[in-house]
């Protein structure tokens, strides 16, 4: 760390001059970047993928129909907290909100998974790069004249990710309950399994893997400790979550796709497009 000499202050230190890579003290190179690879492809693909999900989920969230095909319920509509919800036998349709709620019940619950993903450390990277070009790619100059990052309002609110993680655990618990109910048939008798049951199981497995691989979870279970050796159980849990955390991006995309596919499956079965193939 120590150089043994006092560092010379930069000529531009404290100067209000701007310009990034074109700042007067830096090597005078006209192009904003010299990368020749297809650096634009990952942010473009990310933006396209996220945009496709936003369009689909917005349509489904406002649709307010075809979200229950006994025994399957769409993850977009569970728990269903309005009086207007379709009756779900023993399902998570709790009338917390009365008849005054005239909009789609999905809007009441989607705010939590949406907030969790919006403030997620992976998705932040994805949309900062893909939509805001801050930066578009490494060593590719961003187009903004000013940057304060997450140090000020509104982006300082990204720090509420921890709160959304707590809610995400509750929502994942309810979706697990839904997946268990998928082992009953449409009359409520146990011992059923259809393709929809597998879809629900795969979805909830990916939702849990994504939720538990979250950086906030990793911190809470053990990362916040300074001395692991005094907390062997938490150290072990931290190690397990760290292994999941290394695949957080993959799990983020896999669970995003699975939740949309699970909803689409329920939408198609509820609309009578095809019958749920039944194994037993």
């Amino acid at each position, binding site marked *: 760390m120590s150089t043994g000499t006092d560092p*010379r202050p930069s000529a531009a230190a404290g100067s209000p001059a701007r310009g990034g890579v074109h700042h007067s003290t830096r090597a005078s190179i006209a192009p904003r970047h010299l990368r020749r*690879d297809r650096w634009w492809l990952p942010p473009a693909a990310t933006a396209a993928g996220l945009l496709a999900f936003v369009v689909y989920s917005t349509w489904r969230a406002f649709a307010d129909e075809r979200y229950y095909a006994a025994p399957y319920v769409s993850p977009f509509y569970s728990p269903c907290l309005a009086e207007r919800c379709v009756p779900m036998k023993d399902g998570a349709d709790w009338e917390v909100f009365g008849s005054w709620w005239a909009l789609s019940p999905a809007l009441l619950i989607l705010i939590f998974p949406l907030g969790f993903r919006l403030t997620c450390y992976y998705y932040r990277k994805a949309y900062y790069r893909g939509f805001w070009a801050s930066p578009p790619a490494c060593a590719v100059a961003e187009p903004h004249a000013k940057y304060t990052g997450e140090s000020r309002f509104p982006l300082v609110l990204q*720090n509420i990710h921890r709160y959304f993680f707590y809610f995400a655990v509750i929502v994942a618990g309810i979706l697990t309950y839904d997946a268990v109910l998928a082992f009953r048939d449409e009359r409520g008798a146990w011992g059923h399994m259809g393709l929809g049951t597998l879809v629900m199981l795969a979805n909830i497995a990916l939702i849990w893997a994504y939720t538990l691989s979250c*950086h906030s979870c990793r*911190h809470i279970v053990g990362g916040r400790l300074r001395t692991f050796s005094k907390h062997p159980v938490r150290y072990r849990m931290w190690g397990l979550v760290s292994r999941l955390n290394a695949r957080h991006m993959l799990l983020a995309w896999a669970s995003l796709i699975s939740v949309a596919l699970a909803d689409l499956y329920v939408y198609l079965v509820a609309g009578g497009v095809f019958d749920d193939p039944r194994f037993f």
Partner: protein
Amino acid sequence: MSYQARFKVWRGDAGGGGLTDYEVAVNEGEVVLDIIHRLQATAAPDLAVRWNCKAGKCGSCSAEINGRPRLMCMTRMSVFDPEETVTVTPMRAFPVVRDLVTDVSYNYAKARDVASFAPPADLKPGEYRMRQQDVDRLQEFRKCIECFLCQNTCHVVRDHEENKPAFAGPRFLMRVAELDMHPLDAAAEAGVDRKAAAQEDHGLGYCNITKCCTEVCPEHIKITDNALIPLKERVVDRSYDPLVWLGNKIRRRGAEHGT
């Protein structure tokens, strides 16, 4: 197999400069730094370049090759097509001194701003004992060779010169994280709040975790996942988490009743 490669190398100083074309021989197994040395020995004897170990361990030969921040000694010529023109420029986040040499003193100034390790009062040097699982995390950060490629690629300062006074950059936020995770660091007892310093003095909030520092690290340190995000989470603990606040409140009340 040898071939004649086309190179564009930035030549100049703070007063101005530009890319100069060279044709230079390349032999099998060589790296970009070998070619730069051959240029010095042949067509450009006054070409300025900073280098030392040629083994990716001293962190001296940082530059940008085809626009990507790299160590010249760790970039094999075999990754380029022989027909391709290879462009070598100095790091573009720091003031240029001459040719490929930049003034990296910003980093040394930021290093001095980080409060150093505070020795525990009850232990003498030589009495420090730590278990391996407690130091594994920190040892990853100690692999840093201070090439400053992460500092160079971080858009917070690369694209915004005006942020340099407020932002320490990934390398030194990683240093703060390392010390905050250190089992024997007695900074708190010495009145130093590393989490507050990370947020208020070193500009942790400027980091938007876009992971370019991790992408360019030649030591493959997971700077974002293992240092910056954990440090952000530690700041969240301190400033934003309602459950941690409640837990601390209850513990404090319990301690007061216990005494």
